[in-house]
């Protein structure tokens, strides 16, 4: 017997074995079984690991959220969160608040310590530029950001008129935080 159930209620069928030689010419047996839905594994946890905020070109506020699966999400005003594609393994995020492009930048740190500058987050596809390596924290202000490297040095980041990052190291005593 083969049982290949579809979803739904219990299934049954009657099996009859026939022979005129028997005291009772038929033997009836009921076959029954149940089709059950596969148990779907729970979705991976999507704990928030970092948040940031920025002011969009139209001066509306936007929220940035990095999740524990390394994805970056963007929500402008009251819209739904949309994933920023082209990025993975995001661990930290910060954004400058100057509303007008090109000085309007989002900085993210990925889990390998790379610091990336993003210019086009509104299109939900990040145009990214690698700015620094070995970064463990980043903080942003009006049109600049400070990046703390694992060796304790702090770098100041500012955007040029074309939007690309200008990086300058700052002398710091020991492990000053960004």
């Amino acid at each position, binding site marked *: *017997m*083969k*049982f*290949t*159930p*579809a*979803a739904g209620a219990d*299934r*049954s*069928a*009657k*099996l*009859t*074995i*026939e*022979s*005129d*030689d*028997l*005291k*009772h010419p*038929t*033997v*009836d*047996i*009921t*076959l*029954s*079984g*149940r*089709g*059950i*839905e*596969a148990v779907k594994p729970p979705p991976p946890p999507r704990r928030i690991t970092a948040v940031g905020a920025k002011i969009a070109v139209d001066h509306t506020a936007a929220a940035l959220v990095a999740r524990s699966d390394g994805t970056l999400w963007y929500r402008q005003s009251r819209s739904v969160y949309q994933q920023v594609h082209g990025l993975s393994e995001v661990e930290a995020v910060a954004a400058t608040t100057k509303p007008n492009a090109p000085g309007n930048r989002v900085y993210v740190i990925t889990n390998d310590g790379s610091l990336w500058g993003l210019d086009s987050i509104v299109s939900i596809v990040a145009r990214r530029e690698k700015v620094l390596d070995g970064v463990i924290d980043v903080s942003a202000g009006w049109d600049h950001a400070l990046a703390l490297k694992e060796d304790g040095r702090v770098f100041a980041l500012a955007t040029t008129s074309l939007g690309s990052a200008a990086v300058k190291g700052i002398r710091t005593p020991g492990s000053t935080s960004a």
Partner: protein
Amino acid sequence: MQEIEVKEGGSVLASGATCDLGNVTVGERATRTITVTNKGESALLVSGIDLDREGEISRVNVPALPRSLAPGE
């Protein structure tokens, strides 16, 4: 008159019994082997093995019928 013994997985199934095929995940398949043995002292002719409806439960590897079973076979 002859007697037969119907077994599934070591359990004897009397006429009127229910054989539980169990819970099977949708998209997968379960198979059960039902054995018919001639418990009498002379040959027995099995003329048919039928399901009242074949669909999700169906027969596979059923011998050609009618088939004569020797005593003990």
